[in-house]
């Protein structure tokens, strides 16, 4: 099992204990409150992913063959889901990030937040996370193999 799939499985198990949507959303809101704030210097236009409803800031670093993401949003539910995405994708090698299908979002019943109609920036955020991974992989192809 890849690192990403392991993380996904952890989250799926975590969500299994919730009986109803309200417990689930309370948990996401708490996650939203606890997510590490992005370094303020990255909270600027350059790192902004604009949604029609909520905004997302995303920053990525590349260290020892792994991509490290930090992010933030002005909406708490969005921020909570960002925390899940970071938990799954941050610290993983580029190729795994590029290949990730993020099926866990569907399994924990949050697919609606990734739909076009929500325009909350999450869909574009995932796209942007993968683009960063691709860019890091292209710029330092040797690092991965050594």
């Amino acid at each position, binding site marked *: 099992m890849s690192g990403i799939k392991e993380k996904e499985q952890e989250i799926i198990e975590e969500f299994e204990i919730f009986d109803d949507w*309200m417990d689930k*959303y309370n948990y996401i*809101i708490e996650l939203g409150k606890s997510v590490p704030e992005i370094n303020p210097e990255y909270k600027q236009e350059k790192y902004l992913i604009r949604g029609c409803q*909520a*905004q997302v800031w995303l920053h990525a670093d590349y260290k020892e063959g792994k991509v490290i993401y930090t992010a933030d949003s*002005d909406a*708490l539910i969005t921020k909570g889901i960002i925390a899940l995405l970071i938990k799954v994708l941050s610290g993983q090698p580029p190729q795994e990030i590029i290949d990730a299908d993020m099926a866990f979002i569907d399994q924990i019943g949050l697919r609606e937040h990734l739909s076009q109609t929500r325009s909350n920036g999450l869909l574009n955020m995932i796209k942007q996370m993968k683009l960063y991974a691709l860019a890091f992989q292209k710029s330092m192809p040797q690092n991965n193999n050594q």
Partner: protein
Amino acid sequence: MAVKEDILRKQFPILGLTVNKRPLVYFDNAATTQKPVAVIDRLRHYYESENSNIHRGAHYLSQLATEAYEQARENIRKFINAGQNHEVIFTRGTTESINLVAYAFSKKFLNPGDEVLISEMEHHSNIVPWQIACENHQAHLKIIPMNEKGELRMDQYRKLLSEKTKLVAVTHVSNSLGTINPVKEIIQLAHQNNTAVLVDGAQAAPHIPIDVKALDCDFYCFSGHKMYGPMGVGVLFGKEKWLEQMPPYQSGGEMIKEVSFKKTTYNELPFKFEAGTPNVADVLGMEKAIQFILEVGHKAIARHENDLLQYAINRLSELENIRFIGTAEQRTSVVSFLFNDIHPYDTGTILDKLGIAVRTGHHCAQPVMDHFQIPGTVRISFALYNTKEEIDVLVKALAKVREMFG
């Protein structure tokens, strides 16, 4: 006729839906209204027994469909009290109506250095077409500001009108704030200045009577789907004197008189502006929707919707930390607010879980949000089928939202 809620609601099949295991509360009517059975049946009837291409073909069905289509034009002319049928142009909706004028009026009348005046509270569809037109003709776009209540500053408007102002494009009712603008006064002042006026009536048509003769507007635009009719159809009213002089917007079949490879001459009004096969079924559906509005009656609609508006404002005011965005003296059917510093997206998500459909975000009016320096609002907007009980459900749901985010 008074609005009898139970009878009226039964005419809208979708209102019986259950969403997230709760009865649907539909408060997103400014985005689109639901459709009564009469409209749905009309569409079905057309495709079952009238469907044919119009204004051509000598056969029975073509004649039937053509007559129905032109009768709809006549009924819609009456609905807005226009002088002549050929001043009623069918479009895809308000957006296309505005684009048509922004393209064709500007091509004929907008010259370098001229000015177009719009307001700070416009929907993007009454901003962007004018930005493009001004760019194409080296003209300038000027903005009528609004005050803190979300009302246009008429003193500023007077100052902005000049000999350079070729056209004023302004909304009748604001989609994000519910403000009813003094369009009659705006038009009078513009005409004293020899300036034409386009009114965006998308949010007015379902709520207040439209009389283009009394307003004396040069153009008036509205959409079928925001007034209980089908999606994908709308109207542009234009005064004959302008439409006659304006070049075609789109070209193809229907809009021509004679075509040769050397030269094409254009058809007369309204066909000059209706290139291609028209959306006959939806025009007939829109006609039916208008008939529905007239049967319920504008007075009854206004009384009911104003009741709802007042009730909503009163009930929502009971909540702590609620901030209303848009508090104009003259307003209709829209309440925009922020609640407890909770992001509108968060509020909207939880309300959706509780079966309540609201709109959150910037409502395609980003300059309005910039004015109030907010990321967006939660907007509830009413139609004639909404009830006070639904507002009670909303108020309870908001208490739940506060509990979750508090």
